[in-house]
């Protein structure tokens, strides 16, 4: 029979996340939202969290040599709990972020050693970033225009990236470029571009509707020269035409965790709406409006738990090393959709108070929208599922 208990180890860990969430993640996330400014990298909280061994939750670990794996399952639970407190802050946290999966899955041993080294220093917080999206290419990843040209003992990058999370504060950014625009995915190469590399220019904030606590930035690569050693995976890797597959593999590993973040935001909306309803409404009175409130709460809870189950299934499959592409996309598509509905219902449950900034739920409604966009939009998830189920071409 299936077993849905999370186990003692994780419970202990969650106590820590919960305290961190209550004391820091949520208050800081709300403050950033009010001020319309990301939490700066030198904020003392980041150093504190980093020293505690806490960072961005993404459910991707370096493979342990033996024993049962549970990294993906830990990942979805921790991602949900952190996003419950504040999704923006959970991304703002120091760590490898989306830069982790490509380094860990594609990187050579030397590259891992070199680029993970700063992250072993627990005194100073460190960040990494993942730069794929361009002004002209988001979902259509194969259409990226940033070029990479081999020149002597290095590569020269030219192009522009946009909406890249934490890239301003990152030690390094995994930048995707093409050696041959006509070759599509086969032409893709991933480079580690380190902070301060000449030609990494025009770093600027993008102003977002929600998730203000972390910065999204755009930048330009102008004759940006990186050493050969920074080609992720080395030449051999691409000889096997695995360039694009590498990127996709990282998405598979992170999708269940991103879905779990949507679950976490929705759960926060549920708790806020339920607590408000209990405090302000006489729910036991046979008032039609209160019956509606109870029904909406029940629907939210049911959908949130459904989303969680889909995340857990995808993560479980990842841990037992079974294919989970369909399941990961189902979790992402469903959770992002249901979380939008749930946060919307929370706004409604509060009535007119729900749209005011100090009610908190309207922030969740703004924050959650991104979950249906990042890491493959809802439409792209459906493409992935349909490709597998009915052989949809493309």
């Amino acid at each position, binding site marked *: *029979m*299936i*077993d*849905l*208990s*999370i*186990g003692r*180890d*994780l*419970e202990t860990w*969650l106590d820590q996340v919960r305290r961190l969430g209550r004391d820091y993640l949520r208050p800081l996330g709300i403050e950033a939202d009010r001020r319309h400014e990301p939490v700066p990298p030198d904020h003392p909280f980041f150093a504190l969290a980093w020293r505690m061994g806490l960072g961005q939750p993404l459910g991707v670990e370096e493979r342990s040599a033996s024993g049962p794996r*549970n990294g993906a*399952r*830990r990942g979805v*639970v921790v991602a949900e*709990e952190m996003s*419950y407190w504040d999704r923006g802050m959970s991304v703002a946290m120091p760590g490898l972020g989306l830069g982790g999966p490509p380094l860990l899955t594609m990187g050579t041993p030397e590259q891992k050693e070199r680029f993970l080294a700063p992250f072993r220093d627990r005194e100073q917080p460190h960040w990494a970033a993942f730069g794929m999206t361009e002004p002209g290419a988001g979902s259509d990843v194969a259409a990226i225009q940033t070029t990479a040209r081999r020149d002597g003992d290095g590569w020269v990058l030219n192009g522009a990236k946009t909406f890249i999370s934490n890239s301003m504060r990152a030690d390094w950014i995994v930048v995707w470029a093409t050696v041959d625009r006509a070759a599509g995915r086969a032409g893709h190469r991933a480079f580690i571009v380190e902070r301060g590399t000449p030609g990494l220019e025009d770093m600027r904030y993008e102003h977002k509707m929600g998730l203000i606590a972390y910065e999204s930035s755009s930048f330009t690569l102008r004759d940006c020269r990186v050493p050969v050693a920074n080609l992720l995976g080395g030449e051999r890797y691409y000889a096997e035409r695995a360039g694009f597959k590498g990127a996709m593999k990282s998405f598979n590993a992170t999708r269940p965790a991103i879905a779990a973040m949507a679950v976490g935001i929705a*759960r926060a909306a*549920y*708790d806020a709406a*339920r607590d408000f*309803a*209990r405090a302000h409404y006489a*729910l036991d009175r046979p008032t039609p409006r209160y*019956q509606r409130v*109870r*029904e909406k*709460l*029940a*629907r939210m*809870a*049911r*959908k*949130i*738990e*459904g*989303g969680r*189950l*889909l995340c*857990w*299934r995808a993560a*479980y499959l990842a841990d*037992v090393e079974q294919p989970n592409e*369909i*399941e990961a*996309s*189902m979790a992402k*598509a*469903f959770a992002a959709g249901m979380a939008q509905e749930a946060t919307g219902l929370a706004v409604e449950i509060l009535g007119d108070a729900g749209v005011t900034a100090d009610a908190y739920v309207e922030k969740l409604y703004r924050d959650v929208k991104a979950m249906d966009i990042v890491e493959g939009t809802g*439409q792209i*998830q*459906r*493409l992935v*599922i*349909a490709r597998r*189920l*009915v*052989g*949809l*071409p493309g």
Partner: protein
Amino acid sequence: MFTLALSDEERLIQETARRFARDRLLPGLRAHERARGVPPEVVREFAGLGLAGGEDLGAFVRALVLEELAAVDPGAALALDAPGLAQPLLDAAGLGAAAGRGVVIEDVEGRFHARDGRLAGEHPWVPADAIAVTAVLHPGCAFVVCEGWRLTPIAACGLEAAGASRLLLDDAPIAATLEDPRALARARAGIRTAVGALLVGAARGAHEYAMRYATERTAFGRPIAHHQALAFLIADLATAVDVARLAVWRAAAALDRGESGEWEAASALAEAAEQALLVGPSAVQILGGHGFMKDHPVEKWMRDIRTLASLAGGRDEAELAAAALAPEHEMGFARGR
């Protein structure tokens, strides 16, 4: 750490039920509808597998079996399940296994009245032509009667293979009254979980059939499944079936752990009903005009789903039950949950 794996034994049972449904129910799909029942030899054969509702299988295994049967024919699933939905109440009342079909009525309109150890009332539809036990549920109690009814055959929207009748209880002697709130809650949860499993099965059957059809039928020069409007719909329906199944599994697992399962089962039925009611008509839509015709079974699954979602209080009562519990419901990772 949580796991979603089935045990070897569960997998074997699932496979057995799947094979039985494919070999013994599928060929007779329309014949069973017309006959308002499954041939006695098929009933006997199923009983021989030891998977019918009277057996002490646990809620989880029961959910696996019911899904497999319903993926082919939910009406036949009810017919084969014998006391089926009524069994959790018989168990709670200590009455043991019923001698034949059992039906469950959630008396939402207050049509049934108990007086001097007898029960009287009328219900417009039960999915059976002959029964051995009737259970009538009220908010605070449940009555079990084993004789004293009149059944008038009627035509129903779906589930024809189970039969369909109007039921009249004419001062029927009450065999057992169940008042213990916890026992009642668990019995109700068992019933809702089973109906949820039937809905999941029917939805899965409809989805799989429509999906296969969509890869074979062409329009505008390609398989219709390769038009994005249908491809996305097919992806959403697959997700709908899966999320409903996971909800049913969760409820069944809670019951088998000895919990009341009240919230989980009410949510599971509500979710399964909502998702199946999306899948049924959508499957017909995927087949277009062919879906509307009886040459394909999708129209049947659509009708069956509509009918199933009204069973035992159906979606409304499940949603109301969940709504009553919602203000106290906790979803955080509290210790011990």
